[in-house]
């Protein structure tokens, strides 16, 4: 038996590791570094109904143990993804998680309906951190009933399970999680980036041309762990955990907090081989921790019966 195997709605994963959305393009680039077939799943870049160029550059800035990004959802659009990206990925026997973004509910519906019919798309990841134009630009993900409504509409049209990707920029993450669970979400994916900023001292202007950007990387890991610890105890749907994962130890920490699988984002930029390295190192770490199967870790920091099997 494969001790790394994890089963989540729609996602039968040979190990709990997937690259995070937006940090792996549509896979082609990293396929030059290693065989993508070893991955547990692949979360592809956010897709919108129409192609987008995104924000002006600079789009990234480094921070202490983190980075800011304001890519602006650049992507080839629904048609481009369906025609060029997904078919190419089909050569790998790896479930694809399709990240969906939009500016109004109709966008999400349209994109989800079509993407979820693609053969290798096994799950939709609903990016609710996007600004909602109908509500003056407030992110869908910060108001429980707005997030719930979006979830419900998208669930209605999706042929595959829907994971809602939560924004950490909220006072009460549990409230949002419960709202989207009730609205039918099959799983959660958390956390997206924290909103941050850096200012160039000489130019007296933000380093990012967009001003603000999303903070990712090890800096946000303690916030991610805390939120997953809170939410996993409050909901019954599985969580794909992310936020600063760099090592096999980080993976274990996220799973002990309550994640059922994890995603690696920023770390791919620091080390393109980070996913294969983690996958390779995980079994030895399980041995060291006297854990038979990676699934035995899930929620281990709060489950009653967390003695070694």
């Amino acid at each position, binding site marked *: 038996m494969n001790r790394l195997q994890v089963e989540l709605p729609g996602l039968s994963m040979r190990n709990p590791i997937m690259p995070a959305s*937006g*940090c*792996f*393009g549509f896979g*082609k*680039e*990293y396929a*030059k*570094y*290693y065989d993508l077939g070893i991955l547990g799943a692949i979360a592809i*870049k956010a897709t919108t109904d129409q*192609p*987008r*160029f*995104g924000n002006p*550059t*600079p*789009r*990234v*800035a*480094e921070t*202490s*143990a*983190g*980075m800011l*990004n304001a*890519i602006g959802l*650049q992507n*080839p*659009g629904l048609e481009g993804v369906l025609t060029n990206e997904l078919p190419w990925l089909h050569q790998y026997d790896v479930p694809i998680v399709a990240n969906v973004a939009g500016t109004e509910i109709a966008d999400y519906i349209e994109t989800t309906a079509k993407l979820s019919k693609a053969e290798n798309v096994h799950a939709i990841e609903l990016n609710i951190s996007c600004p909602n134009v109908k509500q003056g630009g407030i992110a869908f993900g910060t108001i429980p009933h707005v997030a719930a409504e979006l979830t419900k509409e998208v669930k209605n049209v999706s042929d595959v399970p829907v994971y809602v990707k939560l924004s950490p920029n909220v006072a009460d993450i549990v409230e949002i999680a419960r709202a989207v669970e009730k609205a039918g979400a099959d799983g959660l994916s958390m956390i997206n980036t924290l909103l941050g900023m850096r200012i160039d001292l000489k130019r007296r202007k933000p380093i990012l041309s967009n001003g603000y950007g999303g903070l990712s*990387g*090890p*800096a946000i890991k303690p916030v991610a762990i805390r939120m997953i610890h809170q939410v996993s105890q409050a909901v019954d749907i599985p969580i794909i955990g992310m936020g600063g994962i*760099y090592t096999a130890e980080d993976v274990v920490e996220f799973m002990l907090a309550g994640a059922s699988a994890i995603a690696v984002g*920023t770390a*791919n*930029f*620091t*080390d*393109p*081989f980070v996913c294969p390295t983690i996958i390779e190192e995980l079994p030895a770490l399980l041995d060291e921790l006297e854990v038979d199967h990676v699934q035995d870790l899930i929620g281990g920091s709060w489950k009653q019966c967390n003695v070694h099997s």
Partner: protein
Amino acid sequence: MIKKDLLKITTQKEIATNIMEVTCSGSLVKQMTEPGQFLHLRVDTSDDLLLRRPISICDVDLENESVTMLYRVEGKGTSRLSYKREGDTIDVLGPLGNGFPLEATDKGETALLVGGGIGVPPLYYLSKQLKERGVNVIHVLGFQSKENVFYEQEFSELGDTYVVTADGTYGSIGYVTDVINEKNLSFDTMYSCGPTPMLAALSTIYGDRRLFISLEERMGCGVGACFACVCHVVGDESGTSYRKVCTDGPVFPVGEVVL
């Protein structure tokens, strides 16, 4: 499959104010055949230097598997790099990107290599290779001030070399474009690397010539996955076409991308 490798530092020294020359060796060097490509360096394993730093290949000794980079001590990353000593290692990814096309210049033709500041280094490996192919090379190197000038001697050994400083403290005064004008330098191909205003000026003046420019942009991944380093394409009406500096560039033919 592309590899990364730990290269071992063999020498590191300051060759001009805040300009370091570091040479390191390792088997990865074998792949560094294309001038204008860059290496993506992970300076150390601490979490606070998360992003790799792009640094151009300045010179390669394929036989001894040794590569030379020149860099300016700017911020945290390059400053920590400058403290490394002989025997220390650097985690290197690359060579990455598309370099300067050697084949754009035929044997016997003349190539004008125009560099500004820390854009000068990749031109050295380019010049060596052009010369090896029988191309006549001329160099115009622009710097801020006398104290920033480097590699004049090295370039002179390959071909005519004109140095210009913005404040006139060394060589002639002004910009690289002034020198090209004043000296009436003629060429078949121009290759350039330097600050964007310089590249923009050259593109305006020599937009109808065989000109290749090497761009800089802040990078995330360096491998084409994150879309941090994109630029617009000249003449694209949809507004959604793009080129990535890290993989489509850093070298582009003039007129391809919006500066």
